[in-house]
């Protein structure tokens, strides 16, 4: 055999023209040395892919997650482009974000965004075809900012400004009396939310109101009854459930992958003066502007107790129970809504709050360390809220079931319980490892991923990936506003409608009452009263 080949090679060599250098067989063999190595590599790679795929598919199938796809498009609004004239009541920081979602930018912000490259993402947002025609703020400086923004003709999504005149209103009553306003967005301090929302509904204006919903039981009941009797569209400002992963979370709950959920734990973790609502100084440490001449103090106070003008109260109103419910009103509201949208738990049977002012020892009323426990005996479930303003360790939002836990943040991580009944076999066979997440959903990858490699596990747990639709960052507030406007034009129910708002309002007021009165409070659902 060898000899024959060599002979053949010799023959071939002899056939070649004599002046050409020849390539010996031995040289070719040496040249090809890498080919078999590459062949083995290919086989091994295919084997590894098949193994990973099979493992991932098995977990995905076991969990019934095959059809859990991320939405890749935002549902376009209808063609109805009838004019919607919007008035903004309260033009502080939050209003700036709201009008950005509505399709408005202050000229300075536009310049800044153009310079840092973030204008493109904003311009890609769909234009919701709403015109801001009124601004109401008790502080001249804020009102001026609002007017300048409303008059800037730049619109996202190729929209064109209708160039309507923009009016400044000195009071919200004046704005609500005006027939030229169809809807209002309310971003005032919290003690005004319910009274203004109620008055707006009575005047037939649609309402988008920031949380919290109401500052007292009387306000809440009056608001609820007024909205129920009116035909307006009400939306409370909770944008978190607009995140694309929320639909997946709903499916996970619906498919009962967690088993019986008996504990939901949600947290607030902050550790800065800004985070503790000390906001009367600018970034350079200088006092922010404002005095009695430029701020209509009597109107700012509204029905709150009369006190002398104070920039501390004006900028740091969250610290005082006269204007707000503290952590409960500012942050637990968002947590409650996120959980209520998923589990529909509604109003708890009882609430117990405890905490104190342990770190930010200024003139505040609100606790800076706070725990609230809510009991749902009918649902056989406890909701626990734990908040601190003196430590920012991320503690997440976790739904704990007999079979698995789900951590819901900017990503979803699903981890089986070591003593789960449902996953007992898979845990025994090694398919599911209870000390590691068994699946994660990450809006960037566009699909459910049973986790296979250590790196992926690491990124999933740290939430390094943004919430995106089709690879483009999308503003959640914009989606929430868009839902409200679509409902105004086409009918339908908003996600944070008055029923959800009422449940949230009662829950928050129960927690607050418990903290203030240092006792366990209950909801009397027959007489509709907190006792």
């Amino acid at each position: 055999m060898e000899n024959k080949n060599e002979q053949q090679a010799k023959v071939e060599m002899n056939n070649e023209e004599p002046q050409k250098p020849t390539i010996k067989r031995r040289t070719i063999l040496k040249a090809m040395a890498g080919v078999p190595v590459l062949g083995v590599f290919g086989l091994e790679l295919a084997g590894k892919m098949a193994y990973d795929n099979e493992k991932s598919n098995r977990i995905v199938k076991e969990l019934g997650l095959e059809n859990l796809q991320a939405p890749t498009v935002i549902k376009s609004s209808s063609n109805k482009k009838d004019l919607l004239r919007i008035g903004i009541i309260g033009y502080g920081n939050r209003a700036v974000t709201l009008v950005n979602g509505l399709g408005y930018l202050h000229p300075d912000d536009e310049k800044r965004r153009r310079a840092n490259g973030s204008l493109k993402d904003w311009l890609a947002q769909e234009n919701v075809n709403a015109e801001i025609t009124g601004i109401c703020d008790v502080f001249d400086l804020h009102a001026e900012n609002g007017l300048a923004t409303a008059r800037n003709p730049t619109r996202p999504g190729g929209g064109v400004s209708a160039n309507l005149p923009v009016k400044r209103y000195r009071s919200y009553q004046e704005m609500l009396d005006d027939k030229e306003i169809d809807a209002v967005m309310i971003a005032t301090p919290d003690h005004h939310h319910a009274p203004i929302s109620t008055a707006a509904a009575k005047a037939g204006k649609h309402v988008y109101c920031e949380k919290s919903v109401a500052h007292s039981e009387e306000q809440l009941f009056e608001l609820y009854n007024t909205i129920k009797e009116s035909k307006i569209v009400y939306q409370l400002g909770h944008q978190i459930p607009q995140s694309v992963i929320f639909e997946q979370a709903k499916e996970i709950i619906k498919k009962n992958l967690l088993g019986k959920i008996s504990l939901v734990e949600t947290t607030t973790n902050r550790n800065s003066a800004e985070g503790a609502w000390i906001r009367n100084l600018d970034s350079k440490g200088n006092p922010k502007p404002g005095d009695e001449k430029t701020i209509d103090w009597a109107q700012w106070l509204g029905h709150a107790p009369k006190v002398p003008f104070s920039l501390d109260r004006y900028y740091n109103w969250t610290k005082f129970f006269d204007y707000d419910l503290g952590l409960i009103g500012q942050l637990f509201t968002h947590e409650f809504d996120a959980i209520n949208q998923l589990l529909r738990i509604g109003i708890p049977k009882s609430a117990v709050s405890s905490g104190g002012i342990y770190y930010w020892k200024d003139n505040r009323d609100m606790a800076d360390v706070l725990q609230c426990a809510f009991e749902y005996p009918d649902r056989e479930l406890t909701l626990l809220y734990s908040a601190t303003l003196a430590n920012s360790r991320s503690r997440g939002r976790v739904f704990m079931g007999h079979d698995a836990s789900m951590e819901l943040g900017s990503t979803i991580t699903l981890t089986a319980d070591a003593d789960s009944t449902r996953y007992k076999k898979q845990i025994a066979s090694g398919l599911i490892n209870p000390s590691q997440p068994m699946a994660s959903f990450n809006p960037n990858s566009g699909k459910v991923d049973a986790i296979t490699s250590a790196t992926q596990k690491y990124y999933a747990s740290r939430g390094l990936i943004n919430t995106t639709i089709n690879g483009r960052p999308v503003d959640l507030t914009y989606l929430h506003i868009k839902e409200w406007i679509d409902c105004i034009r086409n009918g339908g129910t908003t996600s944070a409608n008055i029923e959800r708002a009422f449940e949230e309002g009662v829950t928050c007021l129960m927690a607050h009452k418990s903290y203030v009165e240092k006792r366990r409070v209950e909801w009397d659902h027959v007489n509709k009263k907190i006792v």
Partner: protein
Amino acid sequence: MYTPIQRYALVVLRMLIGWHILFEGFSKLLASNWSSLGFLRESKWLLSGFSHWIISHPGVLQAVDFLNTWGLIAIGLGLILGLFTRVAAISGAILLFTYYLNNPPLIGLEYSVPTEGSYLIVSKTLIEAVALVLLAVFPSGLFAGLDLLVNKYWNRNHKKEE
């Protein structure tokens, strides 16, 4: 000029490094949501400014991800097959040295991702980079590799022109 054992040792080293780099490339290609974002975010020392500039520009980040993945695959193929070995080895050394400079185990630099070994200044990445320099300065593609054919072909054409 070289003893057979010297030749074999270099070729084996080249193929092992090629295998490793090729699989690094493929594993990034196959992980649909892989991005260098996490690695670059952790960047410390000399290149941290540059890395943070990359991640703050989504277009640049995408380009870096693409070039990194396909660069690794090309280098891996070159090393295993012994094709354009010197170019592959030098590019690989530069790439690995860039990784090293982004997270060198220097005293005082702390990373949130734990390393899989214990390193002080010298890490496996640095050793692999230097091993590639070694391969680049020896004609290992001519010991065993497609460079033999490339070389022959080139020489033949060269002679014709003369």
